[in-house]
């Protein structure tokens, strides 16, 4: 069981309110990702749940029980830190054993769990090494191992992949997702990377300046972002956002169209532009197109190879079915 409910939870450091009162429910077994730009309060929110920071107001309930005043160790949550926070002077085995040792678990049960975790995480050969002798990915796995053996009600991850290189990051992303499918334990995962959020989450919580901008499944957020911020934040490359006369035509203050929802033609279309830099990814090509009268260049996706070069003239037509419209407050117009 791992159901976490935040009820009007707020946090202020001195006079600075980092998190205004906020409500959120994390269901048992869910993979929830907090995503938002750096400094928006994701870590703070996670640390409030963990109990490493005291709330300034509101209530945190874990499995229906008020846990607002419960010390971190008693909340039944395990956390994986961005720096891994392994104990450098202990072997991998001792690191993983530490929470069980603190709980006074019998030695043979400890050993059984260590073996199981080591096997699941490919650490069996490294149990007697020190963290300093491991690679970044292995350290990450030790940190996860230390969390697993406690058999917590929920896992909390704070940007666990941000210290890894790109290739390893993709691998670990899959491993963590696998782990979630296997354990079916609640996981709360913090990241500033919307790709991680989209690929891993059951439910994404988009945060900005401590406020929840939108909560929903990855596809919900992709299809119907609630406001301009979410529209611009979710999706890669970013959605094209247009203001001015072009938006007025659709009776909106801002309109948004994703790069994949713009058709390209060499002779006719709604907008005429000039091809700028293009990015070839093999399967896709992204063109940055300057259109007369638009403030920013548009990003457009074409599948595969397209014979368009720097300086070529191009015609673009947005797919109106996928056009997003926002009002003066930045909210979505249905």
């Amino acid at each position: 069981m791992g159901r976490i409910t935040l009820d009007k939870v707020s946090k202020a450091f001195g006079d600075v309110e980092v998190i205004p009162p906020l409500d959120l429910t994390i269901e048992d077994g869910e993979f929830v990702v907090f995503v938002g730009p750096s400094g928006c309060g994701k870590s703070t929110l996670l640390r409030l749940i963990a109990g490493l920071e005291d709330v300034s107001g509101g209530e945190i309930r874990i499995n229906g029980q008020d846990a607002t005043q419960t010390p971190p160790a008693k909340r039944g949550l395990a956390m994986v830190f961005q720096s891994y926070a392994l104990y450098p002077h202990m072997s991998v085995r001792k690191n993983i054993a530490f929470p069980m040792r603190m709980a006074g678990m019998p030695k043979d049960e400890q050993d059984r769990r260590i073996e199981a975790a080591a096997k699941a995480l490919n650490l069996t050969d490294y149990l007697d090494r020190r963290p300093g002798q491991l690679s970044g990915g292995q350290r990450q796995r030790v940190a996860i191992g230390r969390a697993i053996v406690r058999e917590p009600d929920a896992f909390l991850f704070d940007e666990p992949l941000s210290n890894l290189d790109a290739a390893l990051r993709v691998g670990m992303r899959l491993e963590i997702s696998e782990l979630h499918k296997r354990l079916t334990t609640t996981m709360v995962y913090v990241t500033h990377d919307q790709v991680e959020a989209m690929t891993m989450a059951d439910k994404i919580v988009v945060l900005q300046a401590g406020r929840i901008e939108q909560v929903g499944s990855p596809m919900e957020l992709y299809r119907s972002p609630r406001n301009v911020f979410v529209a611009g934040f979710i999706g890669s490359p970013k959605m094209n956002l247009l203001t001015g006369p072009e938006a007025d035509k659709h009776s909106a203050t801002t309109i948004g169209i994703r790069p994949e929802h713009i058709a390209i033609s060499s002779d006719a279309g709604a907008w005429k532009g000039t091809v700028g830099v293009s990015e070839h990814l093999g399967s896709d090509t992204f063109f940055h197109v300057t259109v007369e009268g638009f403030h920013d260049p548009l990003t457009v996706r074409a599948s595969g190879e397209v014979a368009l070069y720097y300086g070529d003239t191009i015609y673009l037509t947005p797919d109106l079915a996928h056009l997003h419209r926002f009002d003066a407050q930045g909210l979505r117009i249905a």
Partner: protein
Amino acid sequence: MATKHSRASARIMISPAVILLLGWMLIPLSMTLYFSFLRYNLLMPGMEEFTGLTNYKYFLTDPAFFAALTNTILLVCGVLLVTVIGGVFLALLLDQPFFGQGIVRILVIAPFFVMPTVSALVWKNMFMNPVNGLFAHLFKFFGLEPFDFLAQAPLASIIGIVSWQWLPFATLILLTAFQSLDQEQLEASEMDGAPWIKRFWFIMLPHLSRAITVVILIQTIFLLSVFAEILVTTNGGPGTASTNLTYLIYMQSLLQFDVGGGSAGGVVAIILANIVAIFLMRMIGKNLDA
């Protein structure tokens, strides 16, 4: 650029410094060695003659030698114990955020800037004096007989004075070590269910081990040669109760004018210091490896 040429010129360039340092060390050392084999008394100038190991025999069989050896060991270990434990404790306190932190930190470090003779005199006259000292007044306030520290517990008193001087050093080194401790490690162990005392034992203390090693190594070097504090307080007495090796050598060569005997003592002290150094490096030097 480690070409053959640059290495050769590097050697030539640093040779003056190396030769100077070598001479600086070797000349006094060989003179001490040379004197230690002479019958050389300042009261009988011009009567020096080679006596072989006689000086060593007298120095090593002198009952004062074993008293001095024991006192040296007690002094070093006592001060190390007080400064390391006290230093950890003070560093722990100073690492907490509190009002006036900056000033308190400077105050804690202040004793280190007081020269040994001065601090020993301050302790002797202002604190430990059985008639006018602050401790005497304190004892009298509680209706107790004043305690004559330097007469009744001379070695312990000197350990106290020297500890007072070295505590700031230990505190400073340990404080910086505390400050370099990753807070996430502490938070992780907190989430892992470790109460404060276990966090201290399993996380903080191991993290401090390297700093503690540095404190022990550096302090041992200086504590083996404590001198001024003894000279201005007890003069090594009563009897030999507070005489350490350094002070014994001083007595031999400058109070008894026996340069030969003093030199023999000096050579013995050098050998003992090296034994201690090897022993220490073996025992705790591995903490310094990364």
